[in-house]
């Protein structure tokens, strides 16, 4: 019996993956020229980064507080609350900060990127650029992509810092863990490799989420429904890819 449906699904998946890969290569090709327009790039870092700050800081604080609370509850069962600083720092720096930042980035900055570029397509702005002999990939897509790639590690770092402060707030100020022990344990056991792991993840997530957002917007069907669908796809695809890549990178770093 034929399994045409399954074959079709796989073929379509491979075709889409190939299209995204080609788009990524073209995008990388346009990144150098885009770097020569620092004004455009700074504007996009501001859009993707600075405008996501409040949601990142708030989430970082709450995630840190929850980590502090759960960590304390867990560690006190084994009589080792002194290790709270280490546990929280490792959890945040290596895992939660890059992953949660990427998920929030996909929901805030990613959707904004997709809908903006999609609407530019729907209102002929990208075609107008083409007719004016200006490559929209260079002028619209590349700066937005780069802006996202630069913003993600910065946001992750801010998330980590605020998260650590939130954990300290609960662990030290509320639960009474010794302040000196909390920080010295952390300092003693968290190495550069742990920080690097988190930062590498954030760069990879930055590339993946920005690529998906820009690609979906650039190829959105130029209708209201098409732009809406592309925006949804950005969130879904970014979230799934982030979690998948997280597993791959965690395994690679072990």
């Amino acid at each position, binding site marked *: 019996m034929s399994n045409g449906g399954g074959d079709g699904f796989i073929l379509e998946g491979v075709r889409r993956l190939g299209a995204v890969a080609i788009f990524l290569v073209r995008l990388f090709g346009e990144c150098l020229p885009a770097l020569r327009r620092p004004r455009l790039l700074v504007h996009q870092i501001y859009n993707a980064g600075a405008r996501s700050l409040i949601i990142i800081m708030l989430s970082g604080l709450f995630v840190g507080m929850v980590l502090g609370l759960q960590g304390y509850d867990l560690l006190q069962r084994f009589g080792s609350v002194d290790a709270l600083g280490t546990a929280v720092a490792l959890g945040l720096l290596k895992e939660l900060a890059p992953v949660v930042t990427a998920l929030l980035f996909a929901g805030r900055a990613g959707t904004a990127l997709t809908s903006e570029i999609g609407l530019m397509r729907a*209102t002929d702005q990208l075609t107008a650029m083409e007719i004016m002999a200006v490559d929209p990939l260079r002028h619209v897509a590349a700066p937005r992509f780069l802006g996202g790639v630069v913003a993600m590690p910065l946001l992750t770092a801010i998330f980590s810092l605020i998260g650590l402060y939130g954990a300290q707030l609960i662990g030290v100020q509320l639960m009474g863990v010794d302040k000196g022990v909390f920080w010295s344990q952390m300092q003693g056991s968290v190495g550069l490799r742990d920080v690097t792991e988190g930062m590498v993840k954030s760069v990879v997530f930055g590339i993946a989420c920005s690529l998906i957002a820009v690609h979906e917007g650039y190829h959105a069907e130029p209708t209201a429904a098409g732009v809406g669908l592309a925006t949804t796809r950005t969130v879904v695809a970014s979230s799934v890819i982030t979690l998948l890549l997280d597993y791959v990178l965690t395994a690679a770093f072990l």
Partner: protein
Amino acid sequence: MVVDVRGLHYAVGGRPIFAGVDVQVRRGRITAIMGPSGTGKTTLLKLITAQIAADRGEVRVRGEDLAALSRSEIYALRKRMGMLFQNGALLTDMDVFENVAFPVREHTNLPEALIRKLVLTKLQAVGLRGAAELMPGELSGGMARRVALARAIVMDPEMLIYDEPFVGLDPISLGVIMRLIKHMNEALGITSIVVSHDVRELATIAHDSYLLSGGRVAAAGAPEQLRASDSPAVRQFMTGSEDGPVAFHYPAPDYAAQLFAADES
């Protein structure tokens, strides 16, 4: 000849849009491309500006076969063209001044003072120097189209392409746009292609005209010649009559049968 289209065939999803179309646009003249909605007027513009490629036939612009050009050569050719989109297609994250300055900034290294003079001159030509600091969202449809026109002429193109320039305009804006098209042609010698189905407006400004229908050129010549044509398809379009070869109704099953079928179900 600025644009020479010969034996053009183009289909979308198996549905033929053009089946052997010939269109010639002569230098320094206003050429009108007319036809009922859905006859592929905008598609023809996309073919002339190399946004899409013909299935068969030849599209030559300034003597160059578009099918044989590389991407950079197409871009070089486009620098000599300006196009006015139906909705203006202004870049919404820039104000009016920056929109008009956009092609200049992209393609030249002119000093800021010179760019400012150039942009203000073009905005003055379309009567919107005072609106330089407005954002596209603050403009009316007619104003947006005039800003788009200023942007289209800022690089002093040899050819201007207008896609449905009269749609949705009030009589005053329509008159202004018509005068501007005529002025661009007479004062600056710009070759113009105007795609529209507004017969009356086109008849007053066009030198040559083509009527597209059913994937072919149904008639060609001066607007007066088209009006005098005894072809039923041409006469129906020029007079806006409901009766003629172009049916009012989209193909559908028998009306009464469909109504009764609905009752029975």
